[in-house]
């Protein structure tokens, strides 16, 4: 990890020195253990703040839409897929972004570690190979990284950046065996009533803070349908009907665009299982239109195009 950090700093300095970019977007050490935060570097003297570790889960592609500058961005597999999506949606140009790609073995879910520690405070966390050493008052524990990965990382099938300008570190082996839609299929196997009950239980926790929307690289609309007052599509309450429709339409709006980076899921303060919704959209788009988001710069976004032979069995005959 240290090597990766050093490599990021070197490339950042080089890019800034040669004036190839105006801005580097990467990560720096956060103020608490197991936390890295986005970092914006404009001069070589600041470049040493840049780091890389297993807490760089944020999807920095969020900062790209509508930027006018030339930007170098540190990006994992899922982040690169988001960048591809944003380029296709004309939010940023390929020439404008310099992708510092990093093959990723998965990021760590702090909440899962905290749950295990039962309230004990971590003062320091140190990464060592496949483990993390946690220390604090009455605390010294060595945990295995793979047991605390984010849910989206556990089912990730694109750990290596699909495109990049420079790749730091060796490519990692992609997980071919994982069934990324297992949970969706299990949910589908339930009855209508059970599905409605569990969907409504889940979304009734929502406080409509919109952290999920704000974290999503694809939610860049100037005016979101939830904020529109003319027409006011849905009420601004946490009434079940309003929240349910908010979640249905949010999922609909990222259909064929979502790359399952997990940002929304991580951002939710209420712990709502948002991937249950986004994964279904992803699966259907794949099944119906044979499209996977963020893999190629050439193919058309699935909802912006059509095939005369698209399935229509669902329609009345």
């Amino acid at each position, binding site marked *: 990890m240290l090597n990766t950090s050093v490599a990021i700093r070197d490339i950042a300095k080089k890019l800034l020195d040669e004036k190839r970019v105006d801005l580097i977007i990467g990560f720096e050490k956060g103020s608490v253990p197991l936390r890295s935060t986005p970092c914006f570097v404009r001069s070589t003297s600041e470049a040493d703040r840049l780091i890389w570790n297993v807490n760089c889960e944020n999807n920095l592609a969020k900062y790209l839409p509508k930027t006018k500058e030339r930007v170098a961005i540190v990006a994992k597999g899922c982040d690169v897929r988001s960048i591809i999506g944003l380029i296709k949606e004309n939010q940023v140009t390929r020439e404008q972004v310099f992708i510092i790609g990093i093959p990723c073995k998965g990021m760590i879910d702090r909440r899962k570690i905290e749950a295990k520690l039962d309230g004990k405070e971590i003062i320091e966390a140190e990464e060592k190979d496949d483990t993390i050493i946690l220390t604090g008052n009455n605390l010294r524990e060595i945990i295995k990284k793979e047991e605390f990965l984010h849910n989206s990382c556990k089912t990730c099938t694109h750990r290596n950046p699909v495109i990049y300008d420079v790749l730091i570190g060796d490519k990692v082996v992609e997980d071919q065996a994982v069934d990324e839609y297992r949970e969706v299929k299990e949910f589908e196997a339930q009855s*209508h009533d059970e599905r409605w009950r569990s969907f409504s239980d889940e979304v009734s926790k929502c406080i409509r803070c919109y952290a999920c929307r704000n974290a999503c690289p694809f939610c860049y609309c100037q005016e979101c349908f939830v904020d529109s007052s003319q027409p006011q599509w849905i009420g601004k309450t946490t009434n079940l009907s309003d929240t349910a429709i908010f979640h249905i339409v949010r999922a609909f709006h990222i259909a064929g665009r979502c790359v399952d980076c997990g940002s929304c899921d991580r951002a939710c303060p209420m712990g709502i299982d948002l991937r249950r919704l986004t994964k279904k959209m992803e699966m259907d788009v794949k099944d119906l239109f044979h499209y996977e988001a963020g893999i190629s710069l050439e193919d058309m976004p699935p909802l912006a195009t059509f095939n005369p032979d698209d399935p229509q069995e669902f329609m009345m005959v």
Partner: protein
Amino acid sequence: MELNIMENQIQQPREKVDEWEPKIIAFLCNWCSYAGADLAGVSRLQYPPNTRIIRVPCSGRISPLLILRCLQHGADGVLVSGCHPGDCHYISGNYVARRKFAILNNFLEYLGIEKGRVQFAWISAAEGKRFAELVQKVTEDVRTLGPATRLVRKQG
């Protein structure tokens, strides 16, 4: 579209349960399905009176928000219809719409909204009879499902 006009069409006091009659909103495209409904009318075809028609320029105009808002504000069922594939007045509006409808249809079912509450069809301007039949079918389906409860916005 003025949402409050749309809502006035749907929002009427709920009758007592034993007198319940399904309220169905039909979004029909101007060029085919609306003309199909017109033909049903001038041909004096009988079909259940539960459907309120909203004319839209094209099935491509239908946003899921329109459909969901109907369900939220008292419609028991929604029918969406446009020109048959290949016949769209705007060449491809219905093809693009079909993709949206496919995923919306699956998604609503996934979340436990009863199958049949929201239905999609192609009806041409010549298909007055088919229009009457499909409206009959949707009305029966919704009647079997009973009043919509999921997604309905309760007052207060």
